[in-house]
């Protein structure tokens, strides 16, 4: 035993257990909404049920006693959106976005008809925000590389929110996030890459079913309106997920594509970017893609969902080409 270990203060296992129980109870009471959200984000099973059974009544009690105030104050201090209504009430995304006007929204939720886009100059570059789930991370960084390498008048900001989607707004509400990101970054263009975590049922409809597609489409439209935040010159380029390797994702991703396409006519300013077609082999999954120099590139990661780092250059080029059809970048 080292000298330092000999000097270490020791205590009993019983007392240690008491300290841990008090610590966990304190954290649970002061952050009960966060624990409920964490529970809702877990895979279905007994652990999730146990956690929610424990945390939900505590959350109600904590709210009644105002014990959630320290968390909301901390969130406000750190500039995070208020997410303490995570359980019991419907999130903004679950509400009918087209009809309801949120009280706290900083700007009109519905954008008017889209106006002509702003054309960037080197002195006033196009502000591109790439956001979404983990799929957006590499795509966004490769897009930033392309823009920098070609000296295009654009600045790319990447804000990936790993593990998020539209099917679990109680865990992460993209409506709130879209409003916050639109206010924080004031982008000219939002590139939204989402879908890798959306294998959950929606409003009682099984993933990929017609009702699920309709609800997903409504949510795409609602989140787009939040990104637009009333700015008729802003655009949202919604990037569909790539063709995945295996079931059930093949069907789900295909339905997500369909849902986004369905939403496009309902929101002026929303554009759909098809990545699945150009990065597949006649609509089927492929590990390898051929780049412009004729080299075969391992384009996908082990999970059969994400693009590899070199592979993400393919969707990035597709996104840039789509932007180039509306903006004068060259």
């Amino acid at each position, binding site marked *: 035993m080292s000298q330092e*270990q000999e000097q270490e203060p*020791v205590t009993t296992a*019983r007392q240690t257990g008491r*300290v*841990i129980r008090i610590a966990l109870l*304190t954290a649970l009471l002061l952050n009960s909404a*966060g624990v409920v959200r964490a529970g809702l984000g*877990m895979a279905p099973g007994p652990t999730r049920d146990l956690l929610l059974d424990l945390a939900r009544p505590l959350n109600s009690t904590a709210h009644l006693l105002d014990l959630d105030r320290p968390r909301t104050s901390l969130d406000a201090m750190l500039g995070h959106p208020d997410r303490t209504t995570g359980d019991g009430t419907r999130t903004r995304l679950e509400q009918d976005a087209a009809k309801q006007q949120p009280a706290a929204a900083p700007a009109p939720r519905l954008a008017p008809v889209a106006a002509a886009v702003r054309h960037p100059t080197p002195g006033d570059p196009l502000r591109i925000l790439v956001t979404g789930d983990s799929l957006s991370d590499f795509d966004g960084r490769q897009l930033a590389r392309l823009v920098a390498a070609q000296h295009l008048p654009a600045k790319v900001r990447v804000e990936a929110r790993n593990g998020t989607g539209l099917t679990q707004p109680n865990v992460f509400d993209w409506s709130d996030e879209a409003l916050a990101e639109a206010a924080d970054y004031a982008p000219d263009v939002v590139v939204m890459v989402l879908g890798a975590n959306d294998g959950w049922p929606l409003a009682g409809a099984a993933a990929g079913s017609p009702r699920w597609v309709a609800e997903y489409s409504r949510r795409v439209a609602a989140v787009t309106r939040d990104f637009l935040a009333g700015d008729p010159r802003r655009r949202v380029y919604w990037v569909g997920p790539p063709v995945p390797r295996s079931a059930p994702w093949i069907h789900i991703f295909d339905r997500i594509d369909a849902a986004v396409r369905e939403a496009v006519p309902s929101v002026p300013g929303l554009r759909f970017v098809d990545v699945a077609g150009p990065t597949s082999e006649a609509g089927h999954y492929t590990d390898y893609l051929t780049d412009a120099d004729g*080299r075969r590139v391992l384009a996908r990661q082990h999970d059969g969902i994400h693009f590899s780092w070199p592979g993400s250059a393919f969707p990035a080029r597709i996104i840039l080409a789509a932007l180039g059809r509306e903006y004068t970048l060259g």
Partner: protein
Amino acid sequence: MIFPTVQFALFFAVVLPLSWALMPRRLLWRPFILAASYYFYAAADWRYAFLLAGSTIVNQTAATVIAHHGKDKLCKAVLIAAISLDLGALGVFKYLDFFSDSVSSSLGLSLGLLHLVLPVGVSFYTFQAISYVVDVHRRRTPLAKPLDYAIYASFFPHLVAGPIVRASEFVPQLAGPRDPDRVPAARAFGLIAGGLVKKMVVADVIGTRLVAPVFGTPQAHNGTETLLAVYGYAVQIYCDFSAYTDMAVGLALLLGFRFPDNFDRPYTARSLQDFWRRWHMTLSRWLRDYLYIPLGGNRGGLKTYRNLMLTMLLGGLWHGAAWTFVVWGGIHGAGLAVERAWPAVAEKLPATKIPSAVKTAAARLLTFHVVCLAWVFFRAPDLGTAFAVLGRLSAAGPATGVVTPTVLLLIAAALAVQWIPASVGVLLRTAFVTLPVYAQGISLGVLLLALAAVSGGRGVAPFIYFRF
């Protein structure tokens, strides 16, 4: 299951009291802790548990044969077979698809890939298994009882990302019940709380706000931002990796077990040799004892340099099959070789009157920057990006806003903390245990709340070393 999650808090809240309750009844405690560890591991993917069980059976069988057959030919053959199986499994999961892809790229083919997802922690428990079988062969550790070995191989605090604990350090602790009246709880809480802060406040913030943007698009950033991103990554990887192993050591302490330390203020090192005595210490000594010394160690003149280089190159490849890791290992290998040759060169140089304090400071500064240079290759997704980052170190241009006061403060604080003597930690922990139990609990609970708020409900970014 990873440590800083609600799932793990629930798991540990159940396992800890049960473990202490069953501790006096060894016949119950052993299967209980084994089952708990397998549950922990299978939570990520139940198929992984079979791989772990297979590795355990193979290595315990090999160790049994070796222990009962002295040092004959059979014994050596079994040793080689066990190591080959261990490394073979590691190779299949870690390198086979890389090999297929390399062949595909060079021959213009599209070879099929196995799409094997690297089982979490496979590198760590494979290294432990090899050390066990070799140590039994070397008669440095006795053959463990099968259940004890199974517990050692799967013990959940160290299973996923180390530290790499040796059988001789852990198995003797299973001989009798741990003392419930001597739990170093304050040190454990300090390690766990410190680990959470390092990961969630320092590593994740620096990683997302500064390092990822600069390494993602080096062309867009000027020299100052690039340099700070390189320093930032040095801080990020230290705070990320040491956070996990600190938590592992802390959790083991709460269960009554001691693990070896894995980090000791590495950026205060005066040489690369010193750095490797402070960074991922359990891997360093593994490489030394099971690779460097069997290669011949430092007993062979020029061969010493070859051995240093080989050890570090293989250490680099252990992190993954990529040229960036080879260069990372090469920089460290070359640096260690230069350090080894330096005293003979210095003797021939004219004597200088530089004060030793200045020499030490210069050595520390130089060591830190060599380590940072190597980190550039470690972090970059490919060699092109690494050279692009290095090329931007002298670039002019406007700032893009990735360097914020928060990020600067975190980098400075994380580096400054390394200079605080370890005795200060003991003083703080002693003060903590003098608080009433409820005050200890509430203060830890408030810290958890603050950390949840800092993460903004977005959870914890994946630990860097999980992919190794």
